[in-house]
């Protein structure tokens, strides 16, 4: 059976069957699928920030970033927010069911290039998922980086993802983990306000900082201006762009963003290279 599947892998348009090894409930509307290839013992390799096309059979295919595993861990993890038809269908799947998977595709976070720098990771909502493998990679070589700061904003406390890992990131690796929510009641003892407000509260050396941002476009726009206010150079800021996708390999043009295709040239871009298109309504 494994032999028969091999030729299919040669076409980037053909989904490969993956078995759901575990379903993790992350929050009321967000879940993770830990998947393993059905017909091959090896897990796929990927770079932090890359995404897969996940196919819910008979429903459709969506781009979803890879959110794990930790280095050396088994399978692939995708953390998904149930917002519509395909993500809703994926949400209904159970352990041992099968999904189709293509990729990994796209550009990666600049981990190697950031050695020697302080790192500011800014995530909004589900945006922490594509950044988690970057954090794992940074922590895997912790001594190669200066300060590591995670600034994370969500709508409500119950939307926070991966909170169990925060203590390890803080305690074992000395990461400055700062989170904030848009609104909360008195049970919440943490920060309230948008994620940009945390930039002023974090301790890093702006000129020697690489910032990696993932979240809704409006949030990223204000995050960039806050980082610039602290004088982080534009060519040290990396953002992610999201557009609807079909082929994910640069054939169809669905994901065009100015002169770039997000699936092939992105989704991670250095800010100074795309800033003239960023925030333009028509693009």
């Amino acid at each position: 059976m494994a032999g028969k599947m091999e030729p299919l892998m040669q076409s980037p348009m053909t989904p490969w069957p993956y078995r759901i090894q575990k379903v993790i409930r992350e929050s009321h509307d967000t879940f993770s699928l830990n998947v393993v290839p059905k017909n091959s013992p090896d897990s796929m390799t990927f770079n932090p920030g890359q995404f897969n096309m996940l196919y819910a059979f008979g429903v459709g295919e969506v781009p979803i970033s890879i959110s794990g595993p930790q280095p050396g861990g088994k399978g692939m993890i995708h953390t998904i927010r149930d917002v519509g038809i395909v993500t809703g269908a994926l949400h209904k799947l159970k352990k041992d069911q099968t999904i189709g998977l293509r990729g990994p595709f796209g550009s990666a976070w600049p981990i190697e290039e950031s050695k020697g720098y302080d790192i500011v990771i800014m995530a909004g909502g589900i945006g922490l998922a594509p950044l988690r493998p970057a954090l794992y990679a940074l922590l895997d070589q912790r001594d190669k980086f200066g300060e590591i700061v995670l600034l994370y904003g969500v709508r409500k406390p119950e939307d926070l993802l991966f909170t169990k890992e925060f203590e390890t990131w803080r305690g074992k690796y000395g990461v400055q983990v700062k989170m904030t929510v848009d609104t909360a009641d008195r049970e919440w003892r943490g920060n309230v306000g948008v994620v940009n407000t945390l930039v002023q509260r974090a301790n890093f050396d702006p000129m020697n900082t690489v910032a990696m941002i993932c979240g809704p476009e409006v949030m990223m726009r204000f995050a960039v201006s806050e980082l610039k206010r602290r004088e982080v150079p534009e060519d040290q800021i990396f953002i992610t762009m999201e557009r609807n996708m079909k082929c994910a390999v640069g054939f169809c043009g669905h994901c065009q963003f100015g002169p770039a295709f997000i699936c092939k040239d992105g989704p991670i871009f250095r800010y100074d290279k795309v800033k003239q298109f960023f925030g333009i309504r028509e693009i």
Partner: protein
Amino acid sequence: MKSLESILANHPFFKGLEPEYLALITGCASNVKFEAGQFIYRQDEEANSFYIIREGKVALEVCPPGKKPITVQTVSDGEILGWAWLIPPYHWQFDAQAVELTRAIVLDGRCLRTKCGEDHTLGYELLSRLLPVVGQTMEATRLQLLDIYGNND
């Protein structure tokens, strides 16, 4: 023990302020401490204080009738709390409650208003520090209203 003047001089809000003005402002200042859960001020009370947070965290809350209070913003180390002392009718718009043990310097708003009235350069210095904070808060509030992480529902 650091003097009030040196604490103010090292606080980001007063960075770069002329020593003579720091001395003037220190004349209106005193140290305060709030335990977790203690109210610093309440909505509609007269606003005659301006707080410079040294350490801790304060929640600004609104309490819709018959509902649980909602926190709309938190203020922490190195930030300032309250500008209603500067704008008539000098009443607080929110409740401010310490979320954790909070140490601050409180400046007497009436004293500051008088000094700013007498010396417009001091008034300008204070306003040019306060306005960016007000602007940034307004920007942040707009983003909160946009509900950017929401599911378009």
